[in-house]
Protein backbone atom coordinates (compact mmCIF):
# COMPACT_ATOMS: atom_id res chain seq x y z
CA UNK A 1 0.00 0.00 0.00
CA UNK A 2 2.99 2.26 0.19
CA UNK A 3 3.29 5.14 -2.12
CA UNK A 4 7.00 5.31 -2.77
CA UNK A 5 9.05 8.34 -1.81
CA UNK A 6 9.15 10.87 -4.64
CA UNK A 7 6.15 9.43 -6.44
CA UNK A 8 3.65 11.93 -5.08
CA UNK A 9 3.82 15.62 -6.05
CA UNK A 10 4.67 17.81 -3.05
CA UNK A 11 1.29 19.56 -3.13
CA UNK A 12 -0.46 16.25 -2.51
CA UNK A 13 2.06 15.29 0.18
CA UNK A 14 1.06 18.42 2.09
CA UNK A 15 -2.66 17.79 1.61
CA UNK A 16 -2.41 14.28 3.09
CA UNK A 17 -0.17 15.44 5.92
CA UNK A 18 -2.75 18.10 6.81
CA UNK A 19 -5.43 15.40 6.95
CA UNK A 20 -3.25 12.96 8.88
CA UNK A 21 -1.88 15.25 11.59
CA UNK A 22 -5.12 16.14 13.45
CA UNK A 23 -6.06 12.45 13.46
CA UNK A 24 -2.70 11.56 15.01
CA UNK A 25 -3.04 14.24 17.65
CA UNK A 26 -6.52 13.00 18.50
CA UNK A 27 -5.10 9.45 18.62
CA UNK A 28 -2.32 10.36 21.06
CA UNK A 29 -4.83 12.18 23.25
CA UNK A 30 -7.22 9.20 23.24
CA UNK A 31 -4.36 6.80 23.91
CA UNK A 32 -3.35 8.72 27.02
CA UNK A 33 -6.94 8.78 28.22
CA UNK A 34 -7.51 5.05 27.69
CA UNK A 35 -4.27 4.07 29.41
CA UNK A 36 -4.88 6.40 32.35
CA UNK A 37 -8.37 5.00 32.84
CA UNK A 38 -7.33 1.35 32.77
CA UNK A 39 -3.76 0.04 32.87
CA UNK A 40 -5.05 -3.36 31.80
CA UNK A 41 -5.65 -1.86 28.37
CA UNK A 42 -1.88 -1.70 27.80
CA UNK A 43 -1.38 -5.46 27.18
CA UNK A 44 -4.33 -5.44 24.79
CA UNK A 45 -2.75 -2.53 22.95
CA UNK A 46 0.49 -4.55 22.81
CA UNK A 47 -1.22 -7.54 21.21
CA UNK A 48 -3.31 -5.60 18.71
CA UNK A 49 -0.37 -3.34 17.83
CA UNK A 50 1.95 -6.36 17.58
CA UNK A 51 -0.18 -7.77 14.81
CA UNK A 52 0.14 -4.55 12.85
CA UNK A 53 3.94 -4.89 13.16
CA UNK A 54 3.95 -8.53 12.06
CA UNK A 55 1.36 -8.51 9.31
CA UNK A 56 2.60 -5.33 7.69
CA UNK A 57 6.07 -6.86 7.37
CA UNK A 58 4.81 -9.91 5.48
CA UNK A 59 4.85 -9.53 1.74
CA UNK A 60 2.60 -12.23 0.42
CA UNK A 61 2.26 -13.40 -3.18
CA UNK A 62 -1.10 -13.07 -4.83
CA UNK A 63 -3.01 -14.29 -7.86
CA UNK A 64 -2.03 -11.28 -9.96
CA UNK A 65 1.63 -12.35 -9.93
CA UNK A 66 2.73 -9.58 -7.61
CA UNK A 67 3.17 -9.31 -3.86
CA UNK A 68 1.46 -7.15 -1.31
CA UNK A 69 1.18 -6.95 2.43
CA UNK A 70 -1.77 -7.21 4.74
CA UNK A 71 -2.20 -4.33 7.21
CA UNK A 72 -3.28 -6.11 10.40
CA UNK A 73 -5.24 -3.10 11.62
CA UNK A 74 -8.51 -4.96 12.28
CA UNK A 75 -7.98 -5.96 15.93
CA UNK A 76 -6.71 -2.58 16.97
CA UNK A 77 -9.61 -0.88 15.19
CA UNK A 78 -12.16 -2.98 17.03
CA UNK A 79 -10.42 -2.61 20.40
CA UNK A 80 -9.37 1.04 20.35
CA UNK A 81 -11.01 2.70 17.35
CA UNK A 82 -9.43 4.28 14.28
CA UNK A 83 -7.52 7.18 15.90
CA UNK A 84 -5.34 5.10 18.21
CA UNK A 85 -4.83 2.64 15.34
CA UNK A 86 -3.55 5.56 13.26
CA UNK A 87 -0.87 6.26 15.89
CA UNK A 88 0.37 2.63 15.83
CA UNK A 89 0.36 2.63 12.03
CA UNK A 90 2.32 5.87 12.01
CA UNK A 91 5.05 4.21 14.10
CA UNK A 92 5.25 1.21 11.76
CA UNK A 93 5.22 3.37 8.65
CA UNK A 94 7.89 5.65 10.09
CA UNK A 95 10.12 2.63 10.74
CA UNK A 96 9.55 1.39 7.19
CA UNK A 97 10.26 4.75 5.61
CA UNK A 98 13.42 5.38 7.66
CA UNK A 99 15.02 1.95 7.41
CA UNK A 100 13.40 0.02 4.58
CA UNK A 101 12.84 2.66 1.89
CA UNK A 102 9.19 1.56 1.84
CA UNK A 103 7.25 4.76 1.62
CA UNK A 104 9.10 7.87 2.74
CA UNK A 105 8.90 10.92 4.92
CA UNK A 106 7.16 13.14 2.38
CA UNK A 107 4.56 10.51 1.48
CA UNK A 108 4.18 9.35 5.10
CA UNK A 109 1.07 11.51 5.48
CA UNK A 110 -0.60 9.85 2.50
CA UNK A 111 0.38 6.39 3.71
CA UNK A 112 -0.94 7.11 7.21
CA UNK A 113 -4.23 8.30 5.73
CA UNK A 114 -4.70 5.08 3.75
CA UNK A 115 -3.45 2.48 6.25
CA UNK A 116 -4.12 4.19 9.55
CA UNK A 117 -7.14 6.36 8.98
CA UNK A 118 -9.48 5.53 6.09
CA UNK A 119 -9.10 1.73 6.28
CA UNK A 120 -9.66 1.55 10.06
CA UNK A 121 -12.43 4.17 9.85
CA UNK A 122 -14.41 2.07 7.37
CA UNK A 123 -13.75 -1.04 9.46
CA UNK A 124 -14.83 0.79 12.61
CA UNK A 125 -18.08 1.90 10.98
CA UNK A 126 -18.87 -1.72 10.15
CA UNK A 127 -17.97 -2.81 13.69
CA UNK A 128 -20.35 -0.23 15.20
CA UNK A 129 -23.02 -1.43 12.82
CA UNK A 130 -22.60 -5.10 13.74
CA UNK A 131 -21.73 -4.74 17.43
CA UNK A 132 -25.25 -4.65 18.76
CA UNK A 133 -26.75 -7.08 16.29
CA UNK A 134 -26.85 -10.84 16.69
CA UNK A 135 -23.97 -11.35 14.24
CA UNK A 136 -21.34 -13.69 15.67
CA UNK A 137 -18.29 -11.78 16.98
CA UNK A 138 -15.81 -13.84 14.97
CA UNK A 139 -17.66 -13.02 11.77
CA UNK A 140 -17.60 -9.38 12.85
CA UNK A 141 -13.82 -9.51 13.40
CA UNK A 142 -13.33 -11.23 10.03
CA UNK A 143 -15.40 -8.67 8.13
CA UNK A 144 -13.94 -5.63 9.92
CA UNK A 145 -10.37 -6.82 9.34
CA UNK A 146 -10.97 -7.64 5.70
CA UNK A 147 -12.72 -4.34 5.05
CA UNK A 148 -10.07 -2.25 6.83
CA UNK A 149 -7.35 -3.93 4.77
CA UNK A 150 -9.27 -3.60 1.50
CA UNK A 151 -10.08 0.06 2.00
CA UNK A 152 -6.45 0.81 2.75
CA UNK A 153 -5.64 -0.20 -0.80
CA UNK A 154 -8.71 1.47 -2.27
CA UNK A 155 -7.52 4.68 -0.59
CA UNK A 156 -4.00 4.28 -1.97
CA UNK A 157 -5.51 3.91 -5.45
CA UNK A 158 -7.62 7.00 -4.82
CA UNK A 159 -4.64 9.05 -3.63
CA UNK A 160 -2.62 8.09 -6.70
CA UNK A 161 -5.50 8.58 -9.11
CA UNK A 162 -6.08 12.10 -7.73
CA UNK A 163 -2.42 12.96 -8.27
CA UNK A 164 -2.14 11.22 -11.65
CA UNK A 165 -5.37 11.45 -13.66
CA UNK A 166 -5.07 9.68 -16.99
CA UNK A 167 -4.74 11.76 -20.14
CA UNK A 168 -7.91 10.18 -21.49
CA UNK A 169 -10.65 9.35 -19.03
CA UNK A 170 -9.04 11.43 -16.26
CA UNK A 171 -9.41 10.51 -12.62
CA UNK A 172 -11.89 7.66 -13.07
CA UNK A 173 -9.90 5.67 -15.57
CA UNK A 174 -6.65 5.98 -13.66
CA UNK A 175 -8.50 5.04 -10.44
CA UNK A 176 -9.63 1.85 -12.18
CA UNK A 177 -6.06 1.16 -13.31
CA UNK A 178 -4.62 1.61 -9.82
CA UNK A 179 -7.43 -0.49 -8.32
CA UNK A 180 -6.44 -3.21 -10.78
CA UNK A 181 -2.96 -3.26 -9.28
CA UNK A 182 -3.62 -2.68 -5.62
CA UNK A 183 -7.12 -3.88 -4.82
CA UNK A 184 -7.27 -7.01 -6.97
CA UNK A 185 -3.92 -8.24 -5.61
CA UNK A 186 -5.29 -7.72 -2.14
CA UNK A 187 -8.43 -9.87 -2.38
CA UNK A 188 -6.91 -13.25 -1.39
CA UNK A 189 -4.79 -11.57 1.28
CA UNK A 190 -7.72 -9.92 3.04
CA UNK A 191 -9.47 -13.28 3.31
CA UNK A 192 -6.45 -14.90 4.97
CA UNK A 193 -5.84 -11.91 7.20
CA UNK A 194 -9.49 -11.79 8.26
CA UNK A 195 -9.61 -15.40 9.32
CA UNK A 196 -6.24 -15.33 11.09
CA UNK A 197 -7.21 -12.30 13.15
CA UNK A 198 -10.61 -13.87 13.93
CA UNK A 199 -8.69 -16.83 15.34
CA UNK A 200 -6.44 -14.53 17.38
CA UNK A 201 -9.53 -12.81 18.73
CA UNK A 202 -10.80 -16.18 19.86
CA UNK A 203 -7.70 -16.56 22.04
CA UNK A 204 -8.14 -13.08 23.48
CA UNK A 205 -11.75 -13.95 24.27
CA UNK A 206 -10.63 -17.18 25.94
CA UNK A 207 -7.79 -15.68 27.97
CA UNK A 208 -8.94 -12.19 28.84
CA UNK A 209 -12.68 -11.75 28.34
CA UNK A 210 -12.94 -9.24 31.21
CA UNK A 211 -10.87 -6.57 29.45
CA UNK A 212 -13.08 -6.79 26.35
CA UNK A 213 -16.15 -6.33 28.52
CA UNK A 214 -14.60 -3.52 30.58
CA UNK A 215 -13.56 -1.54 27.53
CA UNK A 216 -17.08 -2.16 26.17
CA UNK A 217 -15.72 -3.72 22.99
CA UNK A 218 -18.47 -6.33 22.97
CA UNK A 219 -21.32 -6.88 25.42
CA UNK A 220 -21.00 -9.50 28.14
CA UNK A 221 -23.73 -11.62 26.59
CA UNK A 222 -21.98 -11.72 23.24
CA UNK A 223 -18.63 -12.59 24.80
CA UNK A 224 -20.21 -15.39 26.82
CA UNK A 225 -22.03 -16.66 23.75
CA UNK A 226 -18.76 -16.65 21.81
CA UNK A 227 -16.94 -18.53 24.58
CA UNK A 228 -19.43 -21.35 24.62
CA UNK A 229 -19.83 -21.39 20.86
CA UNK A 230 -16.43 -22.31 19.50
Amino acid at each position, binding site marked *: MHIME*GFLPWQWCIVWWIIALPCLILGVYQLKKVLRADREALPLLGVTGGFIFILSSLKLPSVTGSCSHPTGTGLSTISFGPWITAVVCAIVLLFQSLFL*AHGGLSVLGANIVSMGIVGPLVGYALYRLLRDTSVNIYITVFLVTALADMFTYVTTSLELALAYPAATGGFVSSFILFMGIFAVTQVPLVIVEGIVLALVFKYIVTLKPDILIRLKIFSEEKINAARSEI
Partner: protein
Amino acid sequence: MSFKYSLEVLTVIVIVAFCAVFLYTSSTMNGAEFAGSDNVGSGLIAELSATPLENFHPLIPQWEPPSGEIESCLFALQAAFGGMLIGGVFGFWMGQKKKA
Protein backbone atom coordinates in the same frame (compact mmCIF):
# COMPACT_ATOMS: atom_id res chain seq x y z
CA MET B 1 -20.54 -30.71 23.53
CA SER B 2 -19.76 -29.25 20.15
CA PHE B 3 -16.42 -29.44 18.36
CA LYS B 4 -14.14 -26.78 19.88
CA TYR B 5 -11.65 -26.19 17.15
CA SER B 6 -13.71 -25.35 14.07
CA LEU B 7 -12.10 -21.90 13.73
CA GLU B 8 -8.61 -23.42 13.89
CA VAL B 9 -9.49 -26.00 11.24
CA LEU B 10 -11.01 -23.33 9.01
CA THR B 11 -7.89 -21.17 9.36
CA VAL B 12 -5.60 -24.04 8.37
CA ILE B 13 -7.82 -24.84 5.36
CA VAL B 14 -7.74 -21.22 4.19
CA ILE B 15 -3.95 -20.99 4.58
CA VAL B 16 -3.40 -24.28 2.74
CA ALA B 17 -5.74 -23.10 -0.04
CA PHE B 18 -3.81 -19.82 -0.23
CA CYS B 19 -0.53 -21.73 -0.65
CA ALA B 20 -2.07 -24.01 -3.26
CA VAL B 21 -3.30 -21.04 -5.28
CA PHE B 22 0.18 -19.51 -5.06
CA LEU B 23 1.86 -22.72 -6.25
CA TYR B 24 -0.62 -23.00 -9.09
CA THR B 25 -0.28 -19.40 -10.29
CA SER B 26 3.50 -19.32 -9.91
CA SER B 27 3.92 -22.44 -12.04
CA THR B 28 1.39 -21.62 -14.75
CA MET B 29 1.53 -17.85 -15.06
CA ASN B 30 4.08 -16.59 -17.53
CA GLY B 31 5.96 -13.44 -16.64
CA ALA B 32 4.78 -13.38 -13.05
CA GLU B 33 7.64 -11.78 -11.14
CA PHE B 34 5.96 -11.49 -7.77
CA ALA B 35 7.32 -7.99 -7.41
CA GLY B 36 5.76 -5.75 -4.79
CA SER B 37 2.52 -4.06 -5.83
CA ASP B 38 4.19 -0.84 -4.61
CA ASN B 39 6.68 -1.12 -7.48
CA VAL B 40 4.05 -2.15 -10.01
CA GLY B 41 2.09 0.93 -8.90
CA SER B 42 5.15 3.13 -9.40
CA GLY B 43 5.48 1.73 -12.92
CA LEU B 44 1.92 2.77 -13.67
CA ILE B 45 2.61 6.26 -12.28
CA ALA B 46 5.55 6.58 -14.67
CA GLU B 47 3.30 5.49 -17.53
CA LEU B 48 0.44 7.84 -16.65
CA SER B 49 2.65 10.87 -16.13
CA ALA B 50 4.78 10.01 -19.18
CA THR B 51 7.91 10.45 -17.08
CA PRO B 52 10.59 7.75 -17.08
CA LEU B 53 10.91 5.89 -13.79
CA GLU B 54 14.47 7.17 -13.25
CA ASN B 55 13.22 10.75 -13.20
CA PHE B 56 11.40 10.28 -9.92
CA HIS B 57 13.62 11.41 -7.07
CA PRO B 58 12.87 11.34 -3.36
CA LEU B 59 11.58 14.70 -2.15
CA ILE B 60 13.26 14.08 1.17
CA PRO B 61 16.61 12.24 0.97
CA GLN B 62 16.18 8.69 2.06
CA TRP B 63 18.43 5.88 3.25
CA GLU B 64 17.98 2.68 1.31
CA PRO B 65 19.00 -0.76 2.48
CA PRO B 66 22.13 -1.52 0.44
CA SER B 67 20.97 -5.03 -0.42
CA GLY B 68 18.03 -7.39 -0.32
CA GLU B 69 19.65 -9.26 2.57
CA ILE B 70 19.78 -6.19 4.75
CA GLU B 71 16.23 -5.29 3.83
CA SER B 72 14.96 -8.74 4.78
CA CYS B 73 16.92 -8.51 8.03
CA LEU B 74 15.16 -5.28 8.95
CA PHE B 75 11.78 -6.70 7.96
CA ALA B 76 12.46 -9.72 10.16
CA LEU B 77 13.34 -7.39 13.02
CA GLN B 78 10.03 -5.60 12.60
CA ALA B 79 8.13 -8.89 12.69
CA ALA B 80 10.21 -10.12 15.63
CA PHE B 81 9.30 -7.02 17.62
CA GLY B 82 5.61 -7.66 16.93
CA GLY B 83 6.01 -11.31 17.86
CA MET B 84 7.71 -10.38 21.12
CA LEU B 85 4.84 -8.11 22.10
CA ILE B 86 2.22 -10.73 21.30
CA GLY B 87 4.03 -13.64 22.94
CA GLY B 88 4.79 -11.57 26.02
CA VAL B 89 1.22 -10.42 26.51
CA PHE B 90 -0.37 -13.80 25.88
CA GLY B 91 2.04 -15.32 28.38
CA PHE B 92 1.20 -12.60 30.88
CA TRP B 93 -2.53 -13.23 30.46
CA MET B 94 -2.09 -17.00 30.81
CA GLY B 95 -0.20 -16.44 34.05
CA GLN B 96 -2.89 -14.09 35.33
CA LYS B 97 -5.56 -16.64 34.49
CA LYS B 98 -3.71 -19.43 36.24
CA LYS B 99 -3.27 -17.33 39.35
CA ALA B 100 -6.91 -16.30 39.51
